């Protein structure tokens, strides 16, 4: 600590040395190196677009694993982070919305990441530059693209901009989470809530079934006689099937109705009636529609969407796009590997895999495949939870990560112990990704 080099001295002077030292000493995981770079050396500049679980994690671990020698600019249009994981608990009345909301100061202060809050309007892959609306342009050595998903609204006839004002998805946490909670609170006892599930793949495979369970719990305890109807475009519950069906039978028998193979193709926002491709109809007092999904718009702008016009394919060692060089893609926007879910946990792991690869590349070494793991917990009432988990190892011949034989599985049964782990997981995920 006593041998500061001139660069570091100058920086400390500029920051006010006592403040910088206090910050470095007081915050776990912080070091002067993380702020200034090892001996002031720089090996590259990485721009990360999107500060969700994937992008924020990539930014943090790039700084951590490069000892601050990689400069990181993180571009995110929102000033606050609102967590999708745990947002179903808000709908069930089991969690305060405020607990989902987090700032980005930890990434700035603890890791020396430059935060830019602006929308990205263009990416020039040849010149390696990102253009923003209002915050200028940024050159990069490597770009990390963690854009999340956008809906394909057009797949549900009648679900236009006007209809979207009253018929919510709440599948990106934020104002819609609060608005849907309000609709549920305003629902008279005996009313009907209808949730549609798109064909897989979509963000958070067990999410709709957890949401149905949370809302059924709310109806059971606060709105006697109300019903939850799940219209699932898939032909079965696609995650933790036996566990969810078991809970619905034992706890929510007269509340939840599950209809597999029910693909919503049209909605009438006035009568609140949805129709299936087979002509079935269902009316809900509260409609909650989840349209099919694809990689978010900015992924198209970048030119990395090369699977079915929906998802981005990557090299699974580096997570570099197979369509555009020097761009690494993470999270929900990916054409996922076999049995790899579009989850927050997985996006965080993608962020680490990409960070490791980029540190290796910018250090002049060959990136190596890394293991990835997933855990998705679902709370089925106010206390008990169930999980699904897996470990994914890169297969050198097939060139994709595959679930390790014998690894992973689901809970034996719902338990309070796993409920406690679920809430601990959320808190730890926020910290690991954001501070």
């Amino acid at each position, binding site marked *: 600590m006593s041998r500061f080099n001139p660069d570091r001295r100058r920086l400390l002077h500029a920051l006010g040395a006592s403040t910088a030292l206090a910050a470095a000493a007081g915050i776990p995981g912080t070091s002067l190196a993380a702020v200034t770079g090892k001996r002031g050396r720089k090996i590259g500049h990485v721009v990360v677009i999107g500060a969700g679980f994937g992008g924020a994690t990539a930014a943090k671990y790039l700084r951590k694993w490069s000892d601050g020698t990689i400069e990181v600019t993180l571009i995110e249009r929102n000033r606050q982070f609102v967590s999708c994981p745990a947002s179903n608990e808000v709908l069930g009345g089991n969690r305060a919305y405020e607990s989902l909301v987090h700032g980005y100061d930890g990434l700035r202060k603890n890791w020396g990441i430059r935060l830019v809050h602006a929308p990205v309007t263009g990416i020039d892959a040849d010149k390696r530059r990102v253009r923003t609306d209002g915050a200028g342009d940024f050159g990069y050595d490597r770009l990390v693209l963690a854009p999340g998903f956008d809906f394909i609204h057009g797949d549900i006839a009648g679900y236009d901009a006007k209809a979207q004002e009253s018929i919510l998805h709440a599948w990106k946490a934020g104002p819609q989470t609060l608005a849907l909670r309000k609709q549920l609170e305003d629902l008279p006892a005996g009313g009907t809530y209808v949730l549609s599930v798109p064909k897989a793949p979509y963000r958070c495979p067990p999410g709709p079934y957890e949401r149905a369970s949370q809302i059924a719990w709310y109806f059971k305890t606060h709105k006697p006689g109300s019903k939850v109807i799940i219209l699932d475009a898939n032909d079965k519950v696609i995650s933790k099937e036996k566990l969810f069906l078991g809970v619905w039978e034992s706890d929510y028998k007269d509340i939840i109705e599950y209809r597999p193979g029910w693909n919503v193709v049209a909605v009438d926002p006035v009568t609140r009636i949805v129709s299936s491709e087979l002509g079935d109809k269902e009316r809900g007092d509260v409609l909650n529609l989840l349209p099919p999904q694809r990689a978010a718009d900015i992924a198209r702008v970048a030119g990395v969407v090369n699977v079915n016009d929906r998802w981005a394919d990557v090299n699974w060692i580096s997570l570099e796009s197979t369509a555009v060089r020097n761009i690494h893609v993470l999270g929900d926007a990916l054409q996922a590997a076999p049995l790899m879910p579009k989850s927050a946990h997985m996006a965080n792991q993608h962020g*680490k895999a990409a960070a490791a690869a980029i540190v290796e590349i910018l250090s002049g070494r060959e990136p190596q495949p*890394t293991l990835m*793991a997933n855990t998705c917990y679902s709370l089925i009432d106010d206390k008990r939870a169930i999980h699904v988990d897996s470990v*994914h190892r890169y297969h050198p011949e097939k060139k994709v990560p595959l679930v390790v034989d014998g*690894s992973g599985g689901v*809970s034996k049964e719902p338990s309070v112990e796993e409920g406690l*782990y679920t809430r601990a997981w959320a*808190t730890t995920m926020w*910290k690991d990704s954001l501070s």
Partner: protein
Amino acid sequence: MKKTALAIVGSLSAVAALAGPGSTATPATGHTPYFAANCANCHGTDGKAASAIPPLAGRDRAYLEESMKAFKNGTRPATIMHQLAKGYTDEEIAILAEFFAKQN
């Protein structure tokens, strides 16, 4: 500090070499075996967390290694770790135990 770090690198590299070609265990930059960050989502960055889920940082190396092996072979019951532990080789488990034992 520096000497300790070098010692860790040395032992990690030795274990990684045993894991053989195609191993994901190689701690390429020397200071962190990248895959140890897999554990951070639940156990905290570098294994540091104060929650219902047990922290890993600073725990006894042999205890961590034997616990993971017991989860893996089914002799120690768990809600989830018996499933996750099966995803890692014994060599990787040794690297994880070494890494987390050294965090403080």
